[in-house]
């Protein structure tokens, strides 16, 4: 038995199809929906934990991809809501990797480099307008 956490993105025309249900029926996998949402532009997002035979998991993921679903391994993603951010820089000295940084010392503009972020979440609560969010 194996277990794997994955993130699925459904295109608009696939959100009402029983694609995920087939994982039980055709591949003998059990799954746990950790999170599911539909964005305003009608894209579906789902975080799944799959349990079953390792080769069946691989086949199940292939089935999802064949159906046009985007499959990615689960990793947290940190995002800054720039409409909420007040450009104070409170997060900058908290962030251990320099992912949140002052990009110009004359204007004191703050920016975020997702490449450097390790999703440690240390910046989430010290941000006064709570502009930084974790996405799964």
């Amino acid at each position: 038995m194996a277990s794997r956490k994955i993130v699925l993105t459904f295109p608009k025309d696939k959100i009402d199809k029983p694609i995920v249900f087939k994982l039980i029926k055709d591949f003998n996998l059990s799954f746990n929906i950790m999170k599911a949402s539909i964005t305003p532009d009608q894209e579906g997002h789902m975080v799944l934990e799959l349990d079953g035979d390792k080769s069946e998991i691989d086949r199940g993921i292939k089935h999802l991809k064949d159906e046009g679903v985007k499959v990615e391994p689960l990793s947290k993603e940190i995002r800054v809501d720039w409409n909420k951010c007040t450009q104070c820089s409170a997060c900058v000295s908290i962030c251990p990797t320099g992912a949140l940084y002052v990009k110009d010392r004359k204007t004191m503009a703050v920016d975020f480099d997702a490449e450097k972020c390790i999703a440690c979440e240390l910046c989430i609560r010290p941000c006064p307008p709570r502009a930084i969010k974790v996405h799964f």
Partner: protein
Amino acid sequence: MAKTIKEINEKIKQGKAVVVNAEEIIEIVAKKGLAQAAKEVDVVTTGTFGPMCSSGAYFNFGHTKPKLKAGGGTALLNNVPAYTGWAAVDLYIGATAATVDDPLNKIHPGEFAYGGGHVIEELVAGKDVRLQVEAYGTDCYPRKHLDTWININDLNEALLFNSRNAYQNYNVAVNLSDRTIYTYLGTLKPKLGNANYCSAGQLSPLLNDPYYKTLGIGTRIWLGGGTGYIVWQGTQHNPHAPRLDNGVPKRPAGTLALIGDLKQMDPKWIKGVSFVGYGVSLNVGIGIPIPILNEEILKYTAVKDEDIVAAIVDYSDAYPNGKPEVLGEVDYKTVKSGQIEVKGKKVPTSGISSYKRALEIANDLKDQIKKGKFLLTEKVADLPVGDSAPKFKPLKERPIKEGK
């Protein structure tokens, strides 16, 4: 060659006034010299945008039928207590008020996700806010309960009224202890892990007119995106703080009490914020124009970050226990470079107030004046300054003796 505010206003009305922000004036003075710059420039605009805890809003929500008197009873706005002591249907809500069922710091550090500052932001944003009132009922005001949505557009008067804003300089906060501490100047990592500052420095209103020569009671200002006025000195106004030769105080000094029409404001500039472990506050945007009446006034507005010095204060001990000691002094140019040195250690810095937004405010005010939409005012009375100004005192506690 001295100018008057009246003359400057004439130029503004004709669209001929020369207006620059407090950053631009530095270079102009460096290039042209004080005398020439004072001749050419009419107004310098300043700005600041940061958490200002001593802020709040009051409004009149209109009479119900039958009538109700909130005074003596209780009122909640989105579950945040408002002050009812202003009689029938006037309420005051303070920025730092916490939601009634907020766990506060019971599990330290508390989140403080919502509070007074957020209620004020939502009102300004035109969102519906739930109002619940419990009154005791009188012959003239019989109604006892009210539970309704309210909206800023339906309120009779709605004003931002802040008892202490725009601090003239502030501390740079650090933490000498070996645990993380949570303050109104943000999260401070142990053993000098970071240093947080909170001033717009060379753009800050009161640092550009350090002896309050042009601004005072009655001065029209840019407040929260709308128009406001200075109504008094702010609480804790302390012009006696030690000053540099250029007049700039090295410690928190002057403050302003401000008022403005909440209905004109923009939620971008009136923003509820949460300081983990401390509480809720309100980010307030303020812009003050400084009329260049003479060379002396121009010289003050040309102050640079490197000429403004702040005290480095330990918020794990000195600040909370009211001890006067400081760990050193540092200028804002160094502070804004991203790193300062404290006790021989290199410490990364963060802002709590936003320089970028402060500049946007100074520029917006500049544009309004240039377009003739914002006229300058003569102050009605001076803010206290000099030897005659009252001293800022700590509380003299007089313990209560039982049985007396």
